[in-house]
């Protein structure tokens, strides 16, 4: 097989893997939008906050240490213990549940019935507030996140695919972290689908998503469902934060991964969990192949804008996205 085609396949494979990582971020947006109609601008910052909290707990960092030291003149930074990764993930999940409750209790409970744009604005405020709290709580330095995930090229795949091409083909490059991310995303989606289809809370969540008023009339607690949904989105943010943080360290630019999720949402639809996955895969493969084929002719760095162009093209023909619910308004 010609080497160029093999490398094209390699780029497509890596695009699929990157798409899974984009989809992980997009999932959090979908969960909240589906259940409450809120476009959660703070989803990226939630991923950052969750990852910061995870590293902080793992390293035994004292939260708000800088503030405490500044006020009391102390010099405390760490408790002196380290927490195993799994326990730290569990504790961080609890923190994200508490965060979800706080968001519901102090923000959205007061905004029930408001226009979607008001709710969106509230999430913008929440994003900046959370970023500031994260900074104050855990500091601005870049943190190394090591939860034991494998990284680097899979030599097994490289060696066993090298025969496909000539001497200038080195086998397919697949990052082991990306493979783990794909498996985790698959488990996460399966878990979410099972939860929403076969559990009482899941069915209540779907009922709220379909019609708030009708759900309320049959005794479903809107507050509980919103806390549940924000908790799930918080957990998804934690998973996304772990995957992205393992690549680059945990740092404040992690919140910008939300930019990668937007075209995925435009393409897959704001209300579909499978849409987030399929959208992520299409964006991932599309942007990588475009960069591979056209990038060199136009100076490269096409991925950021091409993802949005691709999403816009889909938007023109299917405004609700590939899997979104068709918007029908009767007058």
């Amino acid at each position, binding site marked *: 097989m010609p080497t160029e085609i093999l490398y094209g396949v390699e780029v497509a494979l890596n695009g699929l893997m990157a798409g899974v990582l984009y989809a992980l971020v997009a999932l959090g947006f979908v969960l909240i939008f589906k259940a409450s109609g809120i476009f959660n601008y703070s989803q990226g910052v939630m991923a950052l906050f969750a990852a910061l909290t995870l590293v902080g707990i793992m390293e035994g960092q004292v939260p708000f240490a800088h503030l405490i030291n500044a006020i009391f003149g102390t010099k405390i930074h760490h408790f002196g213990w380290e927490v195993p990764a799994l326990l730290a993930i569990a504790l961080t999940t609890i923190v994200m549940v508490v965060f979800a409750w706080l968001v519901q209790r102090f923000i959205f409970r007061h905004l029930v019935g408001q226009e979607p744009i008001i709710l969106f604005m509230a999430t913008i405020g929440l994003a900046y507030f959370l970023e500031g709290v994260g900074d104050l709580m855990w500091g601005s330095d870049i943190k190394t996140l090591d939860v034991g995930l494998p*990284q*680097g090229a899979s030599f097994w795949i490289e060696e066993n695919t090298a025969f496909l091409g000539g001497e200038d083909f080195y086998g397919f490059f697949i990052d082991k972290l990306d493979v783990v991310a794909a498996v985790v995303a698959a488990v996460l989606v399966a878990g979410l689908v099972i939860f929403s289809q076969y559990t009482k809370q899941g069915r209540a969540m779907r009922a709220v998503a379909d019609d708030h008023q009708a759900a309320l009339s049959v005794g479903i607690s809107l507050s509980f469902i919103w806390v549940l949904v924000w908790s799930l989105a918080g957990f998804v943010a934690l998973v996304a934060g772990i995957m992205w943080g393992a690549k680059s*360290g945990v740092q*404040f630019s992690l919140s*910008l*991964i939300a930019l990668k999720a937007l075209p995925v949402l435009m393409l897959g639809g704001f209300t579909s969990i499978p849409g987030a996955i399929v959208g992520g895969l299409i964006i991932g493969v599309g942007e990588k192949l475009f960069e591979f084929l056209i990038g060199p002719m136009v100076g490269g760095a096409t991925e*950021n804008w091409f993802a949005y162009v691709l999403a816009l093209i889909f938007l023109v023909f299917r405004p609700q996205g590939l899997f979104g619910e068709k918007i029908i308004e009767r007058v």
Partner: protein
Amino acid sequence: MKMMKLAALALAGAVASGPAVAELVIPDLSYRTGPYAAGGIPFSDGYQDYFALLNARDGGIGGVPVRVVECETGYNTEKGVECYESTKGEGALVYQPLSTGITYQLIPKAMTDGIPLHTMGYGRTSAANGKVFEWVFNYPANYWNAASVAVNYLLDENGGDLSGKKLALVYHNSAYGKEPIRTLEELAKKHGYELSLLAVDHPGQEQKSQWLQIRRERPDYVIMWGWGVMNQVAIQEAANINFPMENFIGTWWSGAEHDVTPAGMAANGYKALNMNRINPDMPVFDEIRTHVHEAGNAAGDGSNVGSVLYTRGMYAAMLAAEAIRIAQEKHGVADITPAMMRDGMEALAMTDARMAELGAPGIGPEFSVSCENHGGSGMGIVQQWNAADGKWVALTDYIMSDASVIDPLIEEDSMAFAAEAGVEMRCN
């Protein structure tokens, strides 16, 4: 009677307020928040701690205390300009914008307001031409020097011959990242290497395409012009594709501790340029610990002392303090103005003896500034990350850049600016 009362009030007011207290105002356009905070914090800590040391130990400079006015830019150009506008009225002597984007916006403002800018190893490279840029200084070296230092190092590694070698530049797709391209292209013509360019969009969190391309094309060397998360991701991706780290060289904004630590042992052997030496055992750091940190006046939490960017921030403050001292001597005035500061910067001469006297032996190259040359010596070192010990190790002494290639480029670019802005040549 009424006049008497007014006169008495005026006198009382004058006595109460006392004479205006002289101070040397130094704005610190820092970024302690946002995606680039990890780089901004240590630089700002070093910058502020050095002035705090001078205040605590020497009572300021020439007997006049230094007042540092910190303003948070978030590495955002608009905020940086706001910081400039809000602090210039306080008698600011010199600005260190710490951002190429902010620098470009401030150059025309500084020219109008008559306040010097020191853009140390960043900003507009052609500002090295003092005949055109009266108020801008970029000593001890600029981006084009950095590109040339990297190539000269590689020449040295390859017995003086790079012909037939393949170099790839992985760069931040911004004005900053594009700075070295022209120089590297000119040097490619001269030395016969093949240059490929790989742009990475802001912020640089996703670089799979670029590193797959590197894996396919197998360049002999990769040079990186990155900042922020782009650095950490690039180093991790290079490790993922098993690119030899000793053939991967970052510029001096891609060579701090936090750039390499996320990749762990995989970053071992990665190289980076530096415009100054790092040595945590320099006497000046002990002085800072004693007079500033132990007194509870540290700008940060004190954990950064001796790190790459803390050292660079402190070195920047040291150069500013030296320029102030020279300006005071030159004009016979302790409480200097921005115009006098500019004169001091233009007469700056850093010798080995003076650096040792300041408690920082060998921190920078020896250089002097003149009316014509605002760019210093243009030298840099190459350092290498030792992951096991968790520290940078200097591989070389200060390496000269190729003036025969860079000077004409500086001349060309600065003359274009002069023509566009209607600047009259000086230093005649």
